[in-house]
């Protein structure tokens, strides 16, 4: 054998890899399968030469060697066997339409589930038994009627299209839905499961969802019923057609029968759709899970309602509380404001009084300062001027400035000092733009 060529590169040796003499055995090979190799061809002869090694093998060796050999050929024995109904054996081939093809082949248990392979094996088995030559040998008649039934059954079941037509109307495969009473004995899943499993054979869409059990989820159950309410069935009814006359003469008659068949097929199909629909309706009506889910839903809805009411109550309470709080805050605020007002009124009054007092002090200090007259008796005009000027100053200052001026003036007896304080005040006011230069007549420097 030529070496295998591998173009993909080997990986780089990972850091830290170690093995004794650069080799590390890890796991054994999996067990091998004993098989027979074919004793054919030049390479086998070379193998045989090596393996025999001039030994001679015995019959015992043969048995020993074959113990575990994997078999390739099937045993045809057994597997498909069921008793043959004597009435069935008397059937006439011409009545093939009415025969149970699966029963004829001994496949009643399998029906639409029978594989192609099973049908072929079953057929062969029946042929070996019922071939007319076999009957003749057994001293029977040359009756080949049942043999023909076998051939017909096989012809239909091995033709995928014909088999579908037959399976469509195979009564033997039908599972009748249980009655309400039967169901209510408490075997819903088992009884109805079988019905749906059987109906599922007609579905174009495979696999078909299963009925499930009491633990199925709501989504699963909904999916199940949705599937069955939208069932896409390949079931058809041409197998039950009336025979169409084969001759060319009677064209009208032929067309008439064909039309009749078409209508019959359509009618049966409609009936079948309705039948299935009712079946699903019935199952749905009896399905405890539906009630369970409804209850759950109801409970949930109830819970929702209660929750909602509680929430509303809570909200109302909350609103009332807020309102109360607000009122309280408002009252507090009002009280505070009132107090404050009172306070400020008092303060104002006090300030007023203080200002009055201060004014008096200020005015008094004018007299003290001899009406800003240098010395001696003061002319009346000077008195007027001085008093006017002081009043002017008082009108130009606020209470604080007045207080400041008052404190500067208090206990000052020296007229010069007092005059200077006034002059500074005038200067400050002129600087602040509240007085004009020279507006005060008595205090100009």
């Amino acid at each position, binding site marked *: *054998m*030529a070496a*295998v*060529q*591998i173009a*993909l*590169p*080997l*990986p*780089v*040796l*990972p850091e830290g890899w170690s*093995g004794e*003499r*650069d*080799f*590390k*055995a*890890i*796991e*054994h*090979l*999996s*067990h*091998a*399968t*004993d*098989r*027979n*190799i*074919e*004793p*054919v*061809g*030049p*390479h*086998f002869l070379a*193998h*045989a030469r090596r*393996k025999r090694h001039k030994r*001679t*093998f015995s019959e015992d060796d*043969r048995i*020993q*060697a074959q113990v*575990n050999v994997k078999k*390739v*050929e099937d045993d045809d024995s057994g597997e498909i066997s069921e008793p043959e109904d004597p009435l069935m054996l008397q059937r006439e081939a011409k009545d093939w339409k009415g025969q149970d093809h699966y029963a004829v082949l001994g496949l009643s248990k399998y029906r639409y589930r029978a594989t*192609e392979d099973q049908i*072929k094996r079953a057929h*062969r088995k029946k*042929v*070996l038994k019922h*071939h007319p*030559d*076999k009957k003749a*040998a057994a001293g029977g008649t040359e009756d080949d009627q049942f043999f023909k039934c076998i051939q017909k059954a*096989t012809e239909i079941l091995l033709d*995928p*299209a014909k088999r579908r037509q037959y399976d469509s109307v195979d009564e033997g495969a039908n599972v009748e839905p249980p009655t309400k009473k039967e169901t209510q004995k408490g075997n819903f899943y088992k009884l109805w499961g079988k019905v749906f499993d059987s109906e599922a054979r007609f579905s174009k869409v495979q696999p078909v969802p299963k009925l499930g059990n009491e633990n199925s989820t709501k989504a699963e159950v909904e999916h199940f019923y949705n599937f069955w309410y939208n069932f896409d069935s390949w079931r058809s009814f041409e197998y039950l057609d009336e025979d169409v006359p084969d001759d060319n003469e009677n064209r009208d008659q032929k067309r008439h029968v064909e039309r009749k068949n078409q209508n019959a097929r359509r009618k049966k199909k409609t009936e079948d759709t309705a039948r299935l629909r009712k079946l699903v309706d019935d199952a749905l009506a009896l399905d405890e899970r539906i009630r369970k889910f409804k209850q759950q839903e109801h409970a949930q809805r109830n819970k929702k309602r209660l929750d909602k009411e509680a929430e509303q109550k809570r909200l109302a309470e909350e609103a009332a509380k807020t309102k109360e709080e607000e009122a309280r805050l408002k009252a507090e605020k009002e009280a505070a404001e009132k107090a404050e007002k009172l306070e400020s009124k008092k303060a104002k009054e006090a300030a007023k009084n203080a200002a009055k007092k201060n004014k008096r002090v200020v005015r008094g200090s004018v007299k003290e300062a001899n009406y800003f007259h240098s010395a001696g008796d003061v002319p009346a005009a000077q008195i007027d001027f001085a008093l006017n000027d002081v009043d002017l100053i008082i009108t130009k200052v606020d209470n604080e400035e007045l207080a400041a001026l008052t404190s500067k003036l208090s206990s000052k007896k020296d007229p010069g000092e007092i005059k200077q304080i006034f002059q500074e005040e005038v200067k400050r006011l002129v600087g602040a733009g509240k007085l004009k230069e020279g507006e005060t007549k008595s205090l100009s420097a």
Partner: protein
Amino acid sequence: MSEEIDSAQRVAIGISFGNSYSSIAFTTSEGKAEVIANEEGDRQIPSILSYVDGEELQGTQAKAQFVRNAKNTVAYFRDFLGQEFKSIDPTPCHQSAHPVQHESTIAFKIRDTAEEAENTITVSEITTRHLKRLKNSASEYLGKKVNAAVITVPTNFSDAQKTALSKAAKEAGIEVLQFINEPVAAVLAYDARPEAKLADKIILVADLGGTRSDVAVIASRGGIYTILATVHDYEVSGFKLDQVLMDHFAKEYMKKHKSGGDPRENDRSSAKLKLESEAVKKALSIGTSANFSVESLANGLDFTATINRTRYDLLASKHFAAYARLVTHAVEKAQLDPLDISEIILAGGNSHTPKVASALRSAFPDSTTILAPSTSPTSINPSELSVRGAAIQASLIQRFELEDIEQSTHPMVTVTPHLSHAVGVLCISGEESSGVFHAIVDAETPLPVRRSAIIATPREGGDVLIKLCEGAGHIKVTKPEPKPKKEKEEKDSDDDDESEEEEEELREKTWKVGKVLAEAALKGVKKGAKVEVQISISASLDVNCIFREVGGKGGVRGLLAGPKLVQNGSA
């Protein structure tokens, strides 16, 4: 065994002995198998004997007797050998002598002498007579007396059947050197061609004969063959294809001759219909149309008609489809996927039919080679595959003593452990960080085995890791991106529904990495060098490996011991 022929005196041929046809072949001194034509010039000789006034007719001449002398014509009897009456299907003998129970065996009641009286001739005796005729034809052709043969049999031929056939052959003066399985003979016929290359592959042999069809899935490993699965079928057959044409022409006949009656309901007419239908079927394998022409088909009325191949393909389409299903079923039975099948060898007469090949062509991926006349110019005549294989095997063993052959085919020699998983190495590839498995020895390889591989190294060379693993075949299925549907509907709304067919999914064969068996390090590999890995696996599953740089010195050796035997099975 006083009469045993000295092996030096042997003249051995290959024989394929079918229910419908037999063939004889020998191997030339250049080692080439050649199929022998009998005196009538036939290479496919109908396995039929007929007696007319004590004269024995065989082959094509005997077949012609279906019409006039059906009762004294014996056909389709091979599968009856070595069987009890209760386990045979007499159906194919419907139009010839019927099998009857005779003591513990099967016989035919025929007038095989000039006398009026019927004789009971056992199936063994009939076989002997048939083989004698074959032997004589071969002897005549070779100019020396043939006295030994390798005979092909179906894979489900029981020991009792082989014993009966061996005895019947001996009576005919033929020593059966070995029975070999028909599908394996077909593989050998291909592998014996000088241009054939030894490769590990899975081959499927699909044999569509006259009365049955047989499928075998065979692992071919270094020229050694192991059958992995077989199916046998008696429903899909050449007979059924003939029947399609019989029904067709019978209906055509009745259309033309309204009062001519149904030719299928009269034995003679039916025999004529069948013979001509088979001839038409064969003609349609080469031509695109064929003529049906029978003198006095029924009620003295001649009938001629033409049919083209397309019509035939259509009429028989359900049989072709059933055949394709059967072949696919064999692949399933071998627990394989169509992608695992490298080659399909079409064998048996009906494999000449182009539609048989094309039905399989569409059931298998493009990676599967289909070896049939209509798909491959280098294919071998499917009717001759068995007999060629038999002739080659005969030439290989004809100088062996019988005892030697028996010992060489003893289960102690043939029963062999086969690897249950492929063994290979992990390589690096772009997308898979964990490494990609590459097989060096495939699953189902018989042990002991030695295989080697040459593997690339990283671009810069350096130290590399060799991870020896088991791998299991795995089919990766990629669903196609669903096409935007709206657009499609708008555009092709008035087209036929071809565009609505589902896009085919993409299936690829990949590997799943299994057990890691061993690791080895090769250090300082040169830039651009390659690494050779040699694996030898013994029958007890010891693995001996050698890893070395190609052209370099030294290397690493390792031994991985086999698992301890759990049972006291073979080692």
